[in-house]
């Protein structure tokens, strides 16, 4: 694959050795390439976090905003210029902690943006604190005795908020990831992909997940394809995370309510 949309002059990237962010970034660049989008018309918007540095390595317009605020900026851009393809690159903390309200409202409004969550189960940039997606019992710098708060399920959350496209994937499954990123970007309306990535520096280390290589390969064990999971019992799925497409509601035809009707 040619990486024409990679801003290679900015490499090496700032991420730690073995950080999963670069793998998601690659998949994003490839999906844009494969979709044949006009790269002049793509804007990548991010918040604050390790993952939110990803736009700086793309050769698209990029807007690195405030922690949690990528989505309202993306909303402003998209509404101001509907011709643009607006993609939000965000972390689990950025999108679901401080940015949670914007996330659900964008889903509700069905703004035509794509949100790609680099989900590494913790706050990487600030040193490995818990995020709203940190699994129960996991050790982080703010849950030294193991997390006792339940995490969100991003799929349920955004589906409950009204999202019209929601998928989950994992960085080990590069083809699966690419497919779902492409579908999400192509989707007309709000789309979100929860990408299970990895932070070997903090989450991996604190929770003895092994080195970066072990972390990535182990996704084979604890990520289960939806088609497979659908046939399994809850007990069999305990400790596993299901990946696949969960919501895909085609856009309605003309506007739901013609102006004159009200």
């Amino acid at each position, binding site marked *: 694959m040619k990486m024409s949309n990679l801003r290679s002059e900015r490499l090496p990237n700032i991420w730690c050795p073995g950080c999963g962010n670069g793998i998601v970034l690659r998949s994003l660049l490839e999906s844009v390439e494969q979709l044949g989008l006009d790269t002049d018309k793509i804007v990548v918007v991010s918040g604050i976090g390790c993952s939110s540095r990803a736009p700086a390595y793309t050769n698209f317009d990029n*807007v690195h905003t405030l922690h949690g605020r990528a989505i309202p900026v993306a909303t402003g851009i998209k509404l*101001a210029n509907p011709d643009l393809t607006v993609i939000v690159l965000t972390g689990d903390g950025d999108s679901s902690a401080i940015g949670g309200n914007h996330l659900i409202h964008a889903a509700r409004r069905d703004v035509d943006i794509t949100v790609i969550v680099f989900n590494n189960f913790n706050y990487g940039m600030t040193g490995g604190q818990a995020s709203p997606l940190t699994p129960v019992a996991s050790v982080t710098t703010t849950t030294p005795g193991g997390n006792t708060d339940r995490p969100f399920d991003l799929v349920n959350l955004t589906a409950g908020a009204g999202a019209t496209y929601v998928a989950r994937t994992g960085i080990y499954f590069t083809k699966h990831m690419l497919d779902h990123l492409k579908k999400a970007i192509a989707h007309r309306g709000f789309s979100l992909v929860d990408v299970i990535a990895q932070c070997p520096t903090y989450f991996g280390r604190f929770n003895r997940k092994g080195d970066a290589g072990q972390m990535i390969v182990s996704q084979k064990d604890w990520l289960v394809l939806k088609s497979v999971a659908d046939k399994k019992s809850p007990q069999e799925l305990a400790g596993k995370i299901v990946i696949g497409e969960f919501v895909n509601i085609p856009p309605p035809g003309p506007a739901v309510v013609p102006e004159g009707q009200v």
Partner: protein
Amino acid sequence: MPRIALMQGNEAVAEGALAAGVRFYAGYPITPSSEVAEVMARRMPQVQGVFIQMEDEIASIMAIVGASLAGKKVLTATSGPGFSLMQEGLGYACMIEAPIVILDSMRYGPSTGMPTKVSQMDLMQSRWGTHGDHWLIVYSPSSVQESYDLTIRAVNMAEKYRTPVVILSDETISHLREPITIADVSPTVDRRLPAERAGYLPYKTDATLVPAIANVGTGFRTSFTGLVHSDTGFQTANGHVAEALITRLRDKLLSKLDDIIELEADRVEDADITFISFGITARGVAEAVDVLRTRGKKAGSLRLVTLFPFSDDRIRKAAGNAPTIVVPELNSGQLVLLIKRVFGDSRRIVPLNKVNGDLISPADILNFVAEEKL
């Protein structure tokens, strides 16, 4: 042909913005600014503009920043509580140099306070509300006409200097109805855009100190970040770059004070007592000065149309030589702190504060002058 229309201050801000070319409004309702949103909800579709009610004030300011980066002229309107929430976003707009305009219609605070009562209590906040060194323009209208005119000016200045501009109005002006004159066409300024893609550096600046940053979606592959950034628009932790950036952000405004600062002096030349005030309070002052003059007392008034940048020098020069300076304001003393700095011990600086939710009336001023034997 210019036409005359009776409108409220809030309506004038909305119409002024439309006249200045604002085509994107995002906001969240709050007394006493909500009518701006309501007018925009009605008017934007008529001009192919966008109105969106966001989930809160944080989202509102971030949405107008986004729309601004996409090339629109933008506005949001709020009041104290919402303005407090916007502070982080305001600092971001300063840092990335996004042209945005915010109306803060001041009500009585702190906190929820008295939502339907007037105050001028957000003066210092409008300058210092966000963290970190930053500079911005703050205008203060005194009438409905000026709400209209200054909004046009605010939009133009935001575009010209790539900076957030705050219109610091208040509950009274927001809800006051006065006839205003509307020109057929208003002078508008558009942000400078880069011409050449080759060698494009978004934050590279010439003598104007104002960068010509491309709008997103125009093929320039531009980059914005609230982190300290170099000419490329990309992050750096280089101390020299940081210093140069901060200094430029300051100088791009402070070197243009002639263009930015407007002060309105009235009979200060021979005054024995000069009132320095802003916004709605200046109208009580104007009447009081008239009365004092008819009574043979040499009174004068300096009204700050531009609140920030605040130039000690210019104010010193514009205020004339009255030995007594009275600073009436609807708060516990904010402007007076600045005026004290300007004049040091060279004049008698007398605060006149009212914090009960009512205006300072001409009678209040006359009584004060009498009681304090000024």
